[in-house]
Every structure is written in C-alpha cells, then in structure tokens.
C-alpha cells in the first residue's frame, strides 16, 4: 500500500469546469470519502486518479511516483465500479484472475491468490459461476475481490453500494470498512450518501460544483462546518438567511430575531442551527413559537415551527407516552430554546442554495 497525493488537480471540458482544483493527501491505510451531490466533480476526480480522465492541470502521485501522464494500466490502482463492471463472459474465478494474468503471475500462484481473495469476500466455491448467476451483493463482492487480489497501491471505490438495496447496503458498508482496516488499504471512496461517508471514512472531502468545500473527519464537518453548503449537506440543518442585528442577535429574513453565537458576520451570512439542538417545550422559558405540523417518525418526532414568520424545524426524541408534548398538535403554542453557541453564523457562497429547513 502507498499514499495518494493530489496536487491542484483540475479538469475542464471547454468552458465547463468539472473539477476546479483538488488538493488532497491520503495517508497509507487511510479511507477518504469524496462526498457531494451529483455533478460536484467527485467521480471525475476519482477517474483522474485511475487515469481514465486526463487532468487539465495538476498532478497525481501514487506512492510518491508522479503518474499524471501514465496510462490506466500503468497506475497500480484497484477500482471498484458502480456497475461492478464484471466481465460477463468470464467465470467469477477468471474475473478475479484477470489482473494477475496481466501481471504474468504463474498459474499455481494465481490459483492460490484467487482462492484466497474469494475467501476474503466469502465467496468460496462460486469460482465457476458466471457473474449473471450471482445476486447483486455477490457481484459486488466479486468486484471487490478482483480489485483486491492484485494488491493495488491505492484502492478506488466509485459509489460501490448504490446498486444494493437498503438492508444489504448497511451490511456491505460494514464489511468493506472492516476489510479496508484489516488489510490497511489506502482508499479513495466516492459517494453522494452522507450517512455512508460518515460511517465509513476516516476523513471526508465535501465537494460542490467542482470545488472542495471542506476536508475533515465526521465530527469536524458536523460540528464545525466551514460554510452553509457543508452544514446543509452533512446532516439536516436549519439555514436561515438574514443579518446580524447586534452581537449575539440575528435578524432572520422571515422577521424573527434569534439568539446566536457571538462573532463577526458578513453581509450575506446564514444562521445554521441543527434541528436536534432545538428544544421544544409546552411552557417555560424560550422563544414563543406556533406549531405548523408534527410528524411522528417512531424514534424521533419532527416539529415544524413558525417563529413570528420564520420557519424552523426541530427534531426531538419522541416524548414518552405521559409527556404533555406527546399531545402537541398543529396550531399549538410552544416555547423553543437553544444554546446560542449552537446557532452558528456561516458564509453562504454565491450560488449556494439556502433553503427552508427540509
């Protein structure tokens, strides 16, 4: 295994910028997720690492070696494709052996390593099947084995879970992470699913429209988002446009004045407040609010609130059966409260879509 370094990597198609600039160090054995909505450039970045897309600028270094101009077959990366990309005319064993064959590994050694790789992904005994005879989850594991068997310096995963159903996805997520940690694989992982990225990655790179918005671990991104886009993309978040009225007091566009963290705020700032940090009480201190809707979701309950013209979402653990909050209905008056430090002022980059609480 080795390290992966991206230096000022960019890709333009004519006037269209697919990737503006990515700088990234992936440590030996680290799993880094590229996370963002579709069209953010994450897949293009991965494909530049694999060599399928030539960069317009910047460098790719794998294990310290500059491979920016190397062909895909000379890069020593192991990629797992979203569609799995198994060879339909080869058996599972032949699929897994393909990379070893290309490396001119001898027959006996090849068979040993194929068997070992299939055991690793728990597909012993299926070597003679054709890919179409396997379930989606099994095909996915064949694709993993095929990429792993050649011991690539860098492991690349392109939305490997998006074709699995929800139940299987949680399971495979766990498996891939365990495998990656056990084998110490240097991994770059592309996904649009924040839960997937949070669960699996050591560090996350949040991308949007070709730009890197923030790099950090799950906690850093969730607790200290760099801007409104990151706050809205990682977890749910109330994002309110407005302006600072006085230190610690934010006047939201809707009309309400809300307590917030002290600090300077630019003109186009946004107040970011996590819905689960907003407490809802039937009485007591806090801001008065009116309930627009209550949605029971089992473990949690969503409260859609109106604070004098400003809409706010609160998510609380569903109150116990005997709690008066259990009986709350649309139209009821409640008081809401949050620690001012939880209400952060964040810059909204031009073009960011700042919405009402989802």
């Amino acid at each position, binding site marked *: 295994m080795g390290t992966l370094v991206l230096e000022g990597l960019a890709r333009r198609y004519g006037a269209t910028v697919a990737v503006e600039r990515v700088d990234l160090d992936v440590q030996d054995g680290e799993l880094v997720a590229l996370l963002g909505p579709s069209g953010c450039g994450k897949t293009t970045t991965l494909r530049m690492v*694999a*060599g399928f897309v030539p960069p317009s600028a910047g460098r790719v270094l794998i294990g310290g070696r500059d491979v920016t101009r190397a062909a895909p*077959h000379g890069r020593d990366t192991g990629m797992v494709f979203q569609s799995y*990309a198994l*060879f339909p*005319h080869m058996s599972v064993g032949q699929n897994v052996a393909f990379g070893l064959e*290309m490396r001119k590994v001898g027959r006996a050694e090849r068979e040993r390593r194929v068997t070992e790789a299939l055991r690793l992904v728990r597909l012993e005994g299926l070597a003679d099947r054709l890919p179409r005879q396997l379930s989606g989850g099994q095909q996915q594991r064949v694709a993993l084995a*095929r*990429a792993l068997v050649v011991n690539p310096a860098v492991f690349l995963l392109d939305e490997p879970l998006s074709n699995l159903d929800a139940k299987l996805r949680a399971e495979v997520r766990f498996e891939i992470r365990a495998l990656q940690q056990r084998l110490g694989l240097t991994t770059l992982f592309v996904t649009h699913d924040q839960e997937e990225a949070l669960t699996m990655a050591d560090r996350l790179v949040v991308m949007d429209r070709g730009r890197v918005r923030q790099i950090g671990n799950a906690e850093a991104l969730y607790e200290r988002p760099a801007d409104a886009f990151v706050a809205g993309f990682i977890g749910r978040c109330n994002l309110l446009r407005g302006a600072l009225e006085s230190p610690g007091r934010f006047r939201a566009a809707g009309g309400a004045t809300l307590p917030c963290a002290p600090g300077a705020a630019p003109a186009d700032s946004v107040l970011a407040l996590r819905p689960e940090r907003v407490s809802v009480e039937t009485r007591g201190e806090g801001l008065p609010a009116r309930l627009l809707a209550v949605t029971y979701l089992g473990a949690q309950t969503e409260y859609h609130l109106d604070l004098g013209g400003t809409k706010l979402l609160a998510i609380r653990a569903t109150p116990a059966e005997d709690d008066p909050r259990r009986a709350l209905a649309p139209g009821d008056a409640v008081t809401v409260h949050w620690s001012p430090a939880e209400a952060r002022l964040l810059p909204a980059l031009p073009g960011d879509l700042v919405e009402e609480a989802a």
Partner: protein
Amino acid sequence: MRGSRWRRMAFVLVVAGAYGLVLAPVLAVVVISVFAQEIVSFPPEGFTLRWYANAWEKREFARGFVTSLQVAFAASAIGVPLGTAAALAINRGFGRMDGLRGAMNTLLLGPLAVPGVVAGTALYLFYVRAEFWIDDDIKGTTLGLVAAHVLLTIPWTVRLVSASLQGLDRSAEEAAANLGARPLTVFWRVTLPMLRPGVVAACLFSFIQSFENLELTLLLVGPGRVTLPVAMLNYLEFRVDPTLAAVATVQIVLVGALMLITDRFVKLSRVV
C-alpha cells in the same frame, strides 16, 4: 373480461393472417417440389423426389451453389472485420461529437436504401471504366464479384455491431485497463467477446445477403461462373417446372438451418 377474450382471438387471427401471407409462398414451393405432376392438381397424384434428381443433374445449379458459397464466404470474411472496425471507429472514434456520429450512422443507412439494381449498374459502369484504366478484367472475375458483395456486407455489419456497441458497458473495458491490460489486450479479451452477439449476427446476415443476392450479381458474373440465384434466373428463362422449386427448397432449408444454429448461440430476435 369477455371483451378481452374477443380481442385476443382477433389478435391471433391477425397474426395467423400475416404469417400465412408471408410464409404461404414458401410453404407452397416446398409442397410443389415434392409433387409428382408438373401442373399440380388436387388431390395430388403422388409424391416424388424426381425434381430433386433433376436439379442435381443440371450441373449449373451445383456449380452455382458452390460459387455462391465461395463468394458469400469470402465476402463475409472480408466485410465483417472491416464493418466491425468501422462500427468501432464510428461509435468510439468521435469522442463527444454525438451529432457527427448520428450523421455517420444515417449515412450508413444510405447503401441499404440504394436500389440493388442501381448499385449493380453503378458497379458495372465503374468496373468498365476501371478495366479501361488498369487494362485487366474485373467484371466477370470472382474477385470483382467478391468486392461487390463486400459492399453488401459492410452496412449490415456496421448496423448490427453498432447496436451491440451501444448496449455495451464501457466500464468493463475500463476495469480491464485498471487491472493492467493494454489497449489491444482490452480489445481482444473484453470488448470483442462482449460484442459477440452482434458479430455473430453480422456474419450470418452478411453470408445470407451475399448468398441470396441477385441484383448486384446479375451484371457482374462472367460466362460459366454464375451464382445460384443467377443460375435459377437463367433456367427460368427457358423453362418453368418444379425443378426450380426443388432448388429453392434446398436453399430455404440451408438458410433456415443456418439461422436456427446461430439462434442457439445468439438470440437473433434480440440482436437484429
């Protein structure tokens, strides 16, 4: 539910009608070929293989059959690889220029739409001029005939292989490259095997198109070197009897067998 039953019966009738219409002459010719009398009367007076024996005795048919096989085989062997390369080039060589690719595809429909006798005339006139220039025979030679038939096979091949190419998951090729395969290895080990249905269908249809071609061939065959369809036409000019039905039946059986065998390996109705 009653209405749907009537509708289903109507459907079955329409299908039976269309098939009957399309297949009736073919069935008729098979039946005629085994009837004893020259002008069929009903009920038939007896079955016979006399017309088949008759066809066998006319050596033009046997010679034509062999010539047709040779030409069809040679034309397919040249045209299918060429057409496959062209299909790859059209679908792969133009990057993001989708408009151009569409234009190339439409242009390739052109030859399908040029009347066979027009193309034959064109080739004949072309060959006449070319002979004048290179001062050697072209028309009337097997080489000239094969060259002409290659033109028949290319559009079919390009169309069938293009269809396969468009359904092909390119990431399999990328996976092969990622695993260390050089471009040529990727082609032979991954791309070509994945195109197999299209290529097999192209071989079959190229062969059949060449084998059955009359229009393009008519003007280009030399004396004593005729293909089977031309031999049949020549025979017709002086005599009409069930011998022709026997020859036709043999051809129908051959082509039918070829299609059935191919269908075992590649589901034709899905590819074509």
